[in-house]
């Protein structure tokens, strides 16, 4: 399975997380992993509570992505460029 490797990134780089509510099956694993990053809408699907995250949260969001049973969470290295 393809996961973003963090080996060459310093923990200080911001981490960017994408969630796909259409794939989410609402098992709530992510909320258990970090309730400050992941929430659930009233319909029960995943919702990001914060946009760009500090690098210190990289390991916890990577864990959330790995545990998500629906592959609804993806972690990329950097924040999206400002539009």
């Amino acid at each position, binding site marked *: *399975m393809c996961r973003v490797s963090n080996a060459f990134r310093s923990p200080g780089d911001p981490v960017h997380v994408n969630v796909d509510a259409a794939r989410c*099956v*609402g*098992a*709530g*694993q992510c*909320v*258990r*992993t970090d*309730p400050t990053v992941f*929430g*659930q809408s*009233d*319909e*029960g*699907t995943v919702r990001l509570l914060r946009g760009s995250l500090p690098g210190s949260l990289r390991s916890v969001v990577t864990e959330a992505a*790995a*545990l998500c*049973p*629906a*592959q609804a969470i993806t972690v990329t290295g950097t924040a999206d460029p400002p539009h």
Partner: protein
Amino acid sequence: MIEIPSAATASPQYPQRRACPYRPAGGYERPVTRVRLYDGRPAWLVTGHETARQVLLDAATFSSDRQHPAFPALAARFEAARAVRNFIGMDPPEHTAQRRMLISGFTAKRVATLRPAITEIVDSLLDEVVRRGPGVDLVATFTLPVPSVVICRLLGVPYADHEFFEHQSRRIAAGTSTAAESADAFGQLKRYLLGLIETKGRGGEDMLDVLVDEQVATGTVTTPDLVDLALLLLVAGHDTTASTLALGVALLLEQDAGAVAADPTRVGAVVEEILRHTAVADGVARFATRDTEVAGVRIAAGDAVVVALSAANRDPGPFPDPDRFDPRRGGRQHVTFGHGPHQCIGANLARAELEIALSRLFTRLPTLALAVPVEELGGKEAGGVQGVQRLPVTW
């Protein structure tokens, strides 16, 4: 007729009865091996952790469609369950549309708001345990009632009816039930739920009220379908949670680890390790919808595939020294609740129930001990939810 090649006759049986109720039977080869089902049908048993996740994630290749003739039954009595149409036995997108209706009832927020009610339920059941005194059977007085009262509360079933519910769902789950008995229990629960649902809705707050107001009223789901959904929640969440709780108590007593469960800061990790160890849903069935390859093994369209959750949880890769009970593992990657689109919808509810039940039990009865040796607790028939028949304790 399925032809059984001679090699398959020599392959081991799955499922097998557990010698120790909280240890998986078999010692099957990893990550994929050939087994024989109860009716002699050959099947692929997936035992490796990563392979298990891969198979469960790919619902397009590995179907859960229980009405399809290729879907394998793990015991004779499950042949009857083919007729029940619930999303646990459907594939996406049909599966996902039904599941979507329910997930709002199981969000982390919803589960958190239920915690005080769960604590109250647990404490009042423990009052009765204490009143009955040493020698009491915790299965009858505690582990079975906790999830049944909780699910009744969640759905909006009157408390007065919870004994009826427990009795009927026990008849469905019991390994000793005949197909006719479990069909009768299903019928009784259905009739009851139909009557109950007619009184629901109109702005009420229970899960059934909300489903009637939002889904039945708008035509998304029919009343008979809602009856089947309620039945699924009731059956899927009862014996599983009850058995995990009973096995968890036995395991903690054997390990002399009750004090850790009484510690609210550590009970969460204890529950995860109990879940990993016990895997009461020992294996989940699928069939291949097309020719495919898994961990180098070629699987043909129509082949039976069983994912042995209990074996995947003992894979030494992610779980070094897998047979050791060690709450410090801190790993949540066990597959006791499955993986992929069918991953247990009630996982966080079950965790809350287990955490509260274990921490209250060991806080109130710190000297708890088994009244009989583990071997006398009576395991369950292979193929169904694993557990014990009784749990007599002293303190």
